């Protein structure tokens, strides 16, 4: 038998182990979930206004709502706020935050949409730009602009202009009038293609009251335009100016846009893709404002940092103790094969910690208490693959085969058994991961990864190591069944 692939395989696993060790040695640590580091963890479920039907693009509207919330959450000064949509629920994770009242206020408030007239633009660098509000401050800390008052508002960061002095990108500021229309007046907003021009535009459908106001406003704006003024209005979501469209030359002063429907054409000079993206964004902003979804807490949990730290310690201690106990048991019962198993399980521990740390770095994965439990539970599964293998080797040796043949034969059947068993567990983990919410997912993910890792180690580490040990004569008939004194006598008598 060619031994080279065996050594290559062992070296391969050792190389990964060393890299994992160095990675952790350099200070890489898993991201900790809220239940381990303290903070607020909550799941919010959207509640539609009474009488509203669930729209088809509910998920996208929730995404837009999340964007609004994210801007507000900045005011909490959280290092890494995690706000994500899970299905149609919104999961909020705020490490290190303890002020439940404030969080509830920030997330529970619905986003407000309004149409206001633009009085004038205040680009960065102009003398008035230094006036309040401070556009770099979090949205929640700026003084809100009441609907019936005019004032200065910040534009969205996407439409920023460079500050001529510092060259820094700052959002535009606009002085605007009081709100003419609110989200309540909008019945629908959608992306459409302009007749003839085939340009992307946003169609807007207003209710009766909104239609009348809109006609009056656009009529005024058209007059302003005819006088050589700007004549634009601002679409404001949650006190941020998202867009400032003007009125078309075809709209006459004194008439305005009548009929309660309008189209907003996106800015010129863009590629078709950019036009489409712009139009989609604006339509979503309008729809989000038109459908004020309120988010209601489904679960809300604050964990004190002390409790979190204690839980983590308990988990780590239990994990280590479990590893040591299992290791001792395997060594005592299976000697050499047990030693392979112990090294295998230690690698498992090393790989999983490094893996979780890496996942934290790459995709922001955070280890929760349930995940820790999943890892600890998997110690047993990892030990089991070694046990099955060891038992099979013993069986084969008992049948009179040489140890060198036995390790190969035994691996074939042990591998098959293990693959079947692990497939069942991996299936369980996958189904749990995709169908369940909350802590169950973290657990399932760890369970699944552990099982895959177990198969990997069995094939690339336990197998070649056992082959090599058997080949070197370290694994002998005697050492394989030295445990049972009776068997030793039988073996001795035959020898």
């Amino acid at each position, binding site marked *: 038998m060619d031994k080279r692939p065996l050594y290559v395989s062992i070296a391969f696993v050792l190389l990964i182990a060393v890299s994992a060790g160095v990675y952790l040695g350099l200070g890489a640590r898993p991201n900790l979930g809220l*239940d381990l580091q303290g903070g607020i963890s*909550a799941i919010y*479920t959207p509640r539609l206004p009474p009488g509203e039907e669930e729209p088809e693009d509910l998920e996208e509207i929730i995404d837009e709502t999340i964007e609004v919330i994210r801007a507000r959450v900045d005011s909490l000064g959280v290092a890494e706020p995690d706000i994500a949509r899970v299905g149609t629920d919104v999961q909020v994770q705020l490490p290190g935050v303890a002020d*439940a009242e404030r969080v509830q206020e920030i997330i529970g408030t619905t986003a407000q949409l309004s149409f206001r007239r633009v009085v004038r633009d205040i680009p960065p660098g102009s003398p008035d730009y230094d006036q309040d509000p401070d556009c770099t401050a979090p949205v929640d800390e700026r003084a809100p602009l009441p609907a019936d008052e005019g004032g200065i508002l910040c534009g969205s960061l996407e439409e920023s202009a460079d500050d001529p002095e510092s060259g820094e990108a700052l959002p535009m500021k606009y002085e605007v009038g009081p709100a003419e229309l609110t989200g309540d007046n909008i019945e629908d907003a959608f992306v459409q293609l302009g007749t003839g021009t085939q340009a992307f535009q946003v169609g807007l459908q207003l209710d009766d009251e909104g239609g009348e106001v809109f006609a009056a406003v656009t009529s005024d704006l058209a007059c302003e335009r005819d006088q050589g003024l700007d004549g634009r209005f601002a679409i404001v979501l949650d006190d941020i100016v998202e867009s400032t469209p003007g009125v078309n030359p075809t709209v006459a002063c004194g008439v305005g846009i009548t009929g309660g429907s309008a189209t907003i054409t996106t800015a010129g000079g863009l590629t078709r893709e950019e036009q489409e993206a712009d139009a989609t964004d604006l339509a979503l902003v309008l729809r989000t404002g038109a459908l004020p979804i309120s988010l209601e*807490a*489904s*679960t*809300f949990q*604050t964990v*004190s940092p*002390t*409790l979190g730290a*204690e*839980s983590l*310690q*308990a*988990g780590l*201690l*239990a*994990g280590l*103790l*479990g590893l040591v*106990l299992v290791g001792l*048991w*395997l060594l005592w019962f299976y000697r050499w094969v047990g030693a392979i198993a112990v090294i295998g399980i230690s690698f498992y521990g090393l790989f999983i910690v490094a893996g979780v740390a890496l996942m934290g770095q790459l995709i922001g994965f955070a280890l929760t*208490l*349930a995940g*820790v*439990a999943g890892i*600890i*539970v998997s*110690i*047993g599964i990892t030990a*089991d693959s070694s046990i*099955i293998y060891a*038992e099979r080797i013993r*069986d084969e040796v008992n*049948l*009179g085969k040489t140890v060198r043949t036995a390790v190969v034969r035994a691996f074939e059947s042990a591998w098959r*058994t293990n693959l*079947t*068993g*692990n497939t*069942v*567990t991996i*299936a*369980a*983990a996958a189904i*749990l991961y995709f*169908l*369940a*919410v*909350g*802590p*169950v997912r973290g*657990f399932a993910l760890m*369970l699944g990864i552990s099982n895959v890792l177990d198969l990997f180690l069995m094939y690339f580490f336990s197998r070649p190591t056992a082959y090599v040990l058997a080949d070197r004569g370290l694994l002998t008939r005697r050492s394989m069944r030295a445990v*049972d004194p*009776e068997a030793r006598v*039988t073996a001795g008598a035959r020898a």
Partner: protein
Amino acid sequence: MRTPTLDFVGNSRRWIAISGILIAISLLALGIRGLDLSIDFVGGNAYQLVDVRADVTAAELRDAATDAGAQDVTAQLQTSGEETTGALVRTESLEPASEVERAVRATLVEVSEAQEVGFEFVGPVWGQRITLQAIEALLVFLVVVVLYITFRLEFKMAAASIAALLHDIVITIGIYALIGFNVSPATVIALLTILGYSLYDSVVVFDRVKENTVNLGDPGLRSYRELVNASLNQVVYRSINTSVTSLLPVGALLVIGAQVLGATTLQDLALALFLGMGVGVYSSLFVAGPLFVWLKGFEPEEQRRLAKAAEQDDTEEAPSTAPARVDAPAPGSPEARAPITTEYVRGQGKGKKRRKR
């Protein structure tokens, strides 16, 4: 080390009786006492008070919370050794940061002099939703597993495995009902893990049975009855060792979790796992195996094999009280080596039959 020669299948009446009694007790306990569901399933608020005044009483906390406007209040003291270190107060579902909720929290902190408060709120509908999702996941999982085991091994093995699994779950839930342990999401996670473990164990047993079927008809393996029994004996060490290595970490989790206040999740999980895995090991050997033999017994071929074996036993004047007793030592045991080894040495034994497969 020798392979044991225990009679798993022959004594199946005994195991049926044991399992039957356990299941009956579990179902009774479930029917009469019900389960103590945590707020995660029924909705509610929970306040985890840390480092409380040493002489605070549960009644004191309960009254304080009730006075502040909460309903359905339960209070539980948590002790470490002799000392009261914390308390867990549960109320009905109160919107976080609402007026009543803030009052309840402030009062609790005042009365208990707690240094820190962990707070959990679960809305009334949420619990039902996650429960339904868990049941959905369970059903999908069972269907997938039945299909997989049927495809990989045999349908009757899948049926026996699922039966063993239900057996484990019912008994574990029964223990929860009987002792009144709190059922939390961690418990549900643990139950789902037990599913995995229980099936895994059954799969290991049946995989061995399947592997041995090529030798069906050999002495000592004349029928499925004897074949399964021999296979069970072959995997018995593995089963014991696997349970030991699985229970050790979980036991560590249980013991250490009990010492730490915040580690209730770990403790809940470990408890259910410990119970379930224990039952799971028993069921893979004593429930799944014998049940599979029983299912096989309906096949005419197996009846013929059994009849033939019984005839042979009669002519050899074997004691008829134990028809399934493995009178020839199981293959693999040292005793069996004498007649079989020679064939193996010549390379005409099992290996040859294997190649045929």
